[in-house]
């Protein structure tokens, strides 16, 4: 087992560079999950509750997009945000904004597909009651989404896990620039390629610890909520 005292020392001494990297990782991935939720939850609910031509195809496509390879997403977003690309004038390439965009693209299908499944199952359970209460479509959707809140939190965590773990997309659109777009995963990739394996392993353990912490927090919130609402 390689000596990972270096990374541990960095953590314990509160090394500012390490903390900046951790902060950036959380900022990028949490922002992506928030945006993906804003898009994905209504989208999933819409597909679950609306009959439209090609609906089955849309469901299959949504499920398939959960497995989008991050590096492909990175390449696609890079081409779009490049100065030579359609959205180049925003100057977003090689910034944290580009990384958030790429991860949002990755995470939205996950949240949308899981939302769709959850809401569709709930609709089967509540259909009679909600129809009998003469609710309009918006009220129906909000009632279902609120009722599904715990399952949706799990979907958000799945999305966060995906975002926090990936490197292929953000290294292409972010450029792994020290101090600006270097996150935990891109730093690990860099240190590995430089042959500094102990540091890379240490960073990896820090990353895993953070992901576990986020999940533990969400679990606590969920348990407390469930106790209150059954």
């Amino acid at each position: 087992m390689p000596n990972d005292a270096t990374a541990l020392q960095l953590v314990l001494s509160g090394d500012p560079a390490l903390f900046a990297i951790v902060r950036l990782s959380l900022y990028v991935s949490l922002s992506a999950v928030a945006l993906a939720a804003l898009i994905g939850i209504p989208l999933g609910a819409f597909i679950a509750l609306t009959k439209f031509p090609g609906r089955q195809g849309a469901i299959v496509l949504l499920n398939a997009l959960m497995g989008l390879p991050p590096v492909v997403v990175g390449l696609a977003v890079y081409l779009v945000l490049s100065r030579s690309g359609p959205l180049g004038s925003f100057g977003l390439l090689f910034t944290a904004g580009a990384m958030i965009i790429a991860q949002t693209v990755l995470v939205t299908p996950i949240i949308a597909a899981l939302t769709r499944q959850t809401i569709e199952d709930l609709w089967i359970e509540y259909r009679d009651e909600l129809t009998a209460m003469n609710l309009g479509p918006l009220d129906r959707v909000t009632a279902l989404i609120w009722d599904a809140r715990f399952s949706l939190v799990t979907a958000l965590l799945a999305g966060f896990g995906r975002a926090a773990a990936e490197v292929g997309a953000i290294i292409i659109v972010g450029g792994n620039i020290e101090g600006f777009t270097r996150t935990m995963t891109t730093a690990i990739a860099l240190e590995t390629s430089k042959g500094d394996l102990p540091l890379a392993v240490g960073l990896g353990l820090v990353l895993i610890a953070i992901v576990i912490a986020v999940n533990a927090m969400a679990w606590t919130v969920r348990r407390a909520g469930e106790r209150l609402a059954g």
Partner: protein
Amino acid sequence: MNMLTRRLIIAVTASLVFAGHAAAQDKSIVVASTTSTQDSGLFGHILPMFKAKTGIEVKVVAQGTGQALDTARRGDADVVFVHAKPAEEKFLSEGFGVKRYPVMYNDFILIGPKADPAGVKGSKDIVAALTAIKAKGADFISRGDKSGTHQAELNLWKVAGVDIAKDKGPWYKEIGQGMGAALNTASASNAYVLADRGTWLSFKNRGDLVIAVEGDKRLFNQYGVMLVNPEKHPSVKKDLGQQFIDWLVSAEGQKAIADYKINGEQLFYPNANDSGA
């Protein structure tokens, strides 16, 4: 539901504010350079000096030479700083660069296993060494990624009279990755690999690898810097970019480059005044 919505809105707004703030820090340039230059640690040494003097933040995007030039062609960088003269001159002739300035050189070295199956350790003749490696079928790792190092390697095979594209055998492994990855692979499989001295000096995972061949004049690796042509890409920060270039070739910048050492060893030799470089 209200609480959740509220939190989401705060998160999104905060993101946009943050991103906007970052964009407002405008005294910065993007320099497309290579992974080997980045890995050598040179930028960590000289860029703080440049920032202290001019207040300009230099953001280095480190890629393979081919990718760095491509990034510059697309207008996604302001300055390109690589070490592949033929590719750089092609870049200029296509109109994407303004002018090429030589900056410094370092050298390549042939790294190999201590056991030295091809019997080349200690030689000063890189061409003979490569010929011997091919003859013995000794394992050799190639970067295979159109980088400056890769192009230098291909050039040396050509000088050795080997058409490596045709004559390669299972002993020749192209990995399509950067210098660090190539060294990792060589270390893991006890193979020969052509590396730049800078990356080798900072590389920590050496295993049984040692320097096999060095000092051959044909192993010199010349660096050039160019401003991306603002006529092709009006978004290029030409004033800030030119300031960086001017500093690199100035006495102060050149001294900063020469002063960079690993374990007391100088890595890069400034030669901006060598117009033929």
